[in-house]
């Protein structure tokens, strides 16, 4: 790993405290512009280590119903990139927490990778996750990310073979994102043996070169604790947070999200 980033520093810091990372995913503009900030403040107060800001795309083909609906609602309310930049700047005035942008290729490509990565870096974004970006198509994307010191967090799946995993690891900075299940985001099942096997295999091949985060379908503190025990360096929670936001009155949003996050975070300490 060359150079340091907020994400890399965070993992080093957690390591020294014998902790693993809790990564929380929120949809920009959901439930609306103002209350997105309340959600983020709740996440920070509750002890989230890294925040993923999901910028909504009209056709989120890797996402399940919960994130699809939140994305649609956000776009219907007029969420745009101007709003995204306002949100990032506000968070940066209040916190040094690592921020990752998660969106689909077309949003980034449409802006021009180089120009956009420069802009998001200036605003305070540390990394990008693009679920429909494969390493084969990533030449320009990587070039722009490297020249602007944006971490490129690639996803791997339980069916990714060893050789390909090696190729993906070489292009990944910040952390590697292991998709826990065959499926879209937010589909909950009891933890499958193949997921545990995939986590162990991935950790083995990664060989401590980079932290491994696991996400998709993970929703409870028990799940988080279980994956940490099985060797995950980070656990990512998305749809479960959105479901909570959906049913919480806006006056209680920040407090409720703080409590929810605290419970999740409490299981990431290695005893």
């Amino acid at each position, binding site marked *: 790993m060359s150079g340091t980033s907020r994400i890399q520093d965070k993992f080093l810091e957690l390591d020294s405290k014998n902790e693993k990372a809790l990564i929380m995913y929120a949809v920009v503009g959901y439930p609306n512009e103002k209350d997105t900030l309340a959600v983020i403040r709740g996440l920070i107060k509750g002890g989230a280590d890294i925040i993923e800001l999901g910028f909504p*795309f009209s056709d989120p083909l890797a996402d399940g119903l919960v994130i*699809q609906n939140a994305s649609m609602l956000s776009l219907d309310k007029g969420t745009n990139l101007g709003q995204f930049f306002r949100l990032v700047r506000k968070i940066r005035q209040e916190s040094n927490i690592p921020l990752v942008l998660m969106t*689909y290729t*077309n949003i980034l490509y449409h802006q021009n990778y180089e120009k956009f990565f420069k802009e998001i870096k200036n605003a305070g974004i540390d990394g990008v996750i693009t679920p429909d970006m494969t390493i084969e198509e990533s030449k320009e994307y990587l070039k722009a990310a490297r020249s602007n010191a944006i971490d490129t967090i690639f996803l791997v799946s339980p069916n*990714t073979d060893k050789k390909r995993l090696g190729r993906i690891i070489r292009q990944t900075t910040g952390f590697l994102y292991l998709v826990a299940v065959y499926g879209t985001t937010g589909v909950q099942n009891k933890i499958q043996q193949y997921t545990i096997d995939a986590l162990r295999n991935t950790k083995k091949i990664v060989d401590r070169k980079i932290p491994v985060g696991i996400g998709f379908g993970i929703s409870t503190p028990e799940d988080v604790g279980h994956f940490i025990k099985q060797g995950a360096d980070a656990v990512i929670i998305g749809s479960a947070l959105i479901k909570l936001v959906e049913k919480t009155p806006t006056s209680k949003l920040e407090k409720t999200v703080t409590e929810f996050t605290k419970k999740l975070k409490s299981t990431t300490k290695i005893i």
Partner: protein
Amino acid sequence: MKSRFPKDGRFGEFGGKYIPETLVPAIEELEENYLKIKNDKSFKKELNYYLTEYAGRPTPLYFAKNLTEKIGGAKIYLKREDLLHGGAHKINNTLGQALLAKRMKKKRIIAETGAGQHGVATAMACACLGLTSEVYMGYKDTIRQKLNVYRMNLLGSKVHPVKSGSQTLKDAINEAIRDWITNVKDTYYLLGSAVGPHPYPVMVRDFQSVIGTEIIQQMKKINKKAPDTVVACVGGGSNAIGTFYPLIDSDTEIVGVEAAGKGLKTEFHSATLSAGSKGVLHGMMTYLLQDKEGQIKETHSISAGLDYPGVGPEHAFLKDVNRVKYRSATDKEVIEAFLLLTRTEGIIPALESSHAIAEAVKIAKSKPKSESIVVTLSGRGDKDVEVVEEYVRNIKNSR
């Protein structure tokens, strides 16, 4: 010029594979197996058997004498894909891919459909070959093409109405991809148009190229040469690329016709190549109808089969290198062409194919009688009579 089987799946800068990592092994398995059967004699023999005995190939190249005389220009020939089993060109591709799926030992087939023609063709091929099929269809399309929903059910296919997004073809593809991600191990995704991640655009093109290959042979018999012009409608673009591809290296003028809906200057059309910009959707880089921040726009066309904000990447390439001219026809022009062909020739064309008829009539007017134009009549219009009836009634009432 010809882009036969691009290793990186690119036609110039278009195409590629922009997909979730979970699908990468499935796409690689598909590519490997497709390359294996592409030139395999026993596969070709089997496919040919079904195309001939089951689907009804070769289809006639019919000289539309009455229409030609009425227009008074170049001779118009109709490539009668509407006469195929199921009533559309779609069966050329579904038989090919279903046979491939069988060789890959995949028992569960999923598909998306717009107008329902690909869904029906998938259900037929699967019933014939002993496979189970499930079809995703935009909720809006299940209403305007309800006859096809019933046909799929009769054929043993389960139809999933898709209520997300614009509830049309684009959303049906999203949902089919989500299903594939979830059931990647035992499921084969039978894509119906020349779109999606590599190798789909190449594979669908190859299975549909039987259209253009037959046109060349049939015109040689009639005229001793290739047609002067070919015309086909373009949504995703599978009947068009199947018509065009075998003629790419010839001197034939090639014209694709998109859906201009209520007009290119309105927000209500699906003319991706005429009015779109570059972007990434459904695993491919291509032209898209999108807003200034890259959100995909809702489209409109009177024909459900062309109601799609993207287009096959090879068409994007053929446009940029100026090999194919892409034009468009409005809903109004399409209805007029539909009625014209129905009354002059006794052939009821699909609304999709009526786009090609509308443009072919314009071209024929401007050309001498010595020239020949072949129009691919991609499907029959029985499924559309209700939509046409309603459109015509509304016009009468508004007068």
